């Protein structure tokens, strides 16, 4: 019996869509499985509480965890106010104009620039020209520049999604622009902004190329923002690339994955609580 053509199309489309979804999940599971299988044996408590010894063959990754946390926090704390501010400016303080088009074009370009180029810029500008040296500061500022476009565009999208009526209500109740932004717009854009920030945290933690050029690769415990550091991704890269210890490399990789999962879970829980609280 011949099926009519439209049934055939329907069936093929269904198979293709299922294959797409399954292969996405499949790739994800394979990566997670591989890294966790190889890495979890290395994850005993001392791994998190000791700093590396013998180039990272022995000991743990404490100094790397501290360096990663410091660099990521710095990047996010610098980029979030700048990015949110830019998005508010673009959405609330200017109408479509030449300036807003130039800024938007600039951020679009920035988001397409490979991270190694940011690394090179950070190296030339922060490390050499501003004499910050290889440091958490140089690395954090470089990564901040890198995640800025993400924060700007997610915040803009979040603000765009706010009903126009909220603005009208706020203005009609005698609010000025700043009060309207802080009372009616930002609280409602917060979930979207938060998503952008969490994405950026993930990118900062995972960034290797830009960080190795600006924060260095010191295994010493950082003591200030001017200390060089070796973030977990860079540590993983060096351990694996230079054949120092695959066991420790996978341990670091597994720790990275678990860290990102933990941050996402906590963030989602907080976000859902916030949304539930408001509706």
């Amino acid at each position, binding site marked *: 019996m011949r099926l009519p053509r439209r049934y055939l199309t329907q069936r093929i489309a269904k198979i293709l869509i299922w294959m797409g979804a399954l292969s996405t999940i499949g790739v994800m599971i394979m990566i997670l499985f591989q890294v966790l299988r190889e890495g979890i044996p290395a994850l005993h408590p001392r791994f998190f509480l000791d700093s590396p010894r013998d180039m990272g063959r022995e000991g743990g990754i404490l100094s790397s965890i501290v360096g990663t946390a410091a660099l990521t926090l710095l990047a996010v704390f610098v980029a979030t106010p700048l990015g949110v501010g830019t998005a508010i400016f673009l959405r609330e303080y200017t*109408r479509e104009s030449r300036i807003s088009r130039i800024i938007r074009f600039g951020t679009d370009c920035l988001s397409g620039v490979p991270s190694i180029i940011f690394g090179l810029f950070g190296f030339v500008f922060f490390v050499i020209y501003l004499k910050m040296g290889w440091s958490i500061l140089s690395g954090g500022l470089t990564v901040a520049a890198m995640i800025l476009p993400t924060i700007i565009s997610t915040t803009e999208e979040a603000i765009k999604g706010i*009903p126009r*009526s*909220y*603005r*009208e*209500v*706020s*203005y*009609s*109740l*005698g*609010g*000025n622009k700043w*009060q309207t932004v802080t*009372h*009616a717009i930002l*609280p*409602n854009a917060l979930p979207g902004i938060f998503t952008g920030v969490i994405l950026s945290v993930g990118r900062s933690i995972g960034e290797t190329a830009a960080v190795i050029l600006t924060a260095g690769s010191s295994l010493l415990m950082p003591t200030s923002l001017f200390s060089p550091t070796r973030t977990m991704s860079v540590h993983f890269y060096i351990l694996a690339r230079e054949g120092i210890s695959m066991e420790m490399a996978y341990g670091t990789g597994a720790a990275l994955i678990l860290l990102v999962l933990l941050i996402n879970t906590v963030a989602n829980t907080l976000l859902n609580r916030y949304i539930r609280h*408001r*509706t």
Partner: protein
Amino acid sequence: MLQQSKIVVKDFSVHYHSDEALRNISLQIQPKEIFTIFGPARSGKTTLLKSLNRLRDLIPGTRHTGTIFIDGTDIYDPKVDLYQLRRRIGMVFDLPTPLPLSIFDNISYGPRLRGINDKHHLTEIVEKALRSGVLWDEVKDRLHTSAIRLSGGQQQRLCIARVLALEPEVLLLDEPCSGLDPISTASIEESLRVLKKEYTIILVPHNIQQGSRVADRAGFLLNGDLVEVGTAYQVFTKPLNKKTEDYITGKFG
């Protein structure tokens, strides 16, 4: 005239890009009356309301000629405090627009913007506003739950109460019952009759019947022209203009 008009609109025209949204409107509105502006869709009713509290300033591409006086003051004078003006001229929109905040925070939004932060004082303002908006009995036990969970009719009365919390002088109501069932509509119309004692009310009704039920005077707006103004009784029963009559009797609209 014995009494000074609350609002005087004088040769007022509004252009939206190249379209003329309002053409040479002249109109006087007396204190503590309900004035209804009715007419078909897109005839400029909302534009006229939003010109009275200058909310139209927010819409890019509009400009006006002529002017509007409230209590004898030109509201388009650059020296006018825009934010104070909007507190004096409260507006309720056609769809309920609760902010995603608690009932209490919705009502206290305006007073807080004005700088009132004292909890006790705010509580008094909120209770008074909710009582005037005929919503207090229904929500007094759950002031701190989200306003979004209220029914449509309750949300709209919340919006009216939120405006009343500003202690305005004029209420602009833009089809406040358009999304509501007849029972909610009746309760809002009932509260309008009470509010009239204290406020000057300009109402865009969601149908002619509502206009004729509640208004003291009425104006018919058609394609940006104010065709006819008179007492509600006269305009709705013995219109002088042929177009008004055709609209009221349903020949177009």
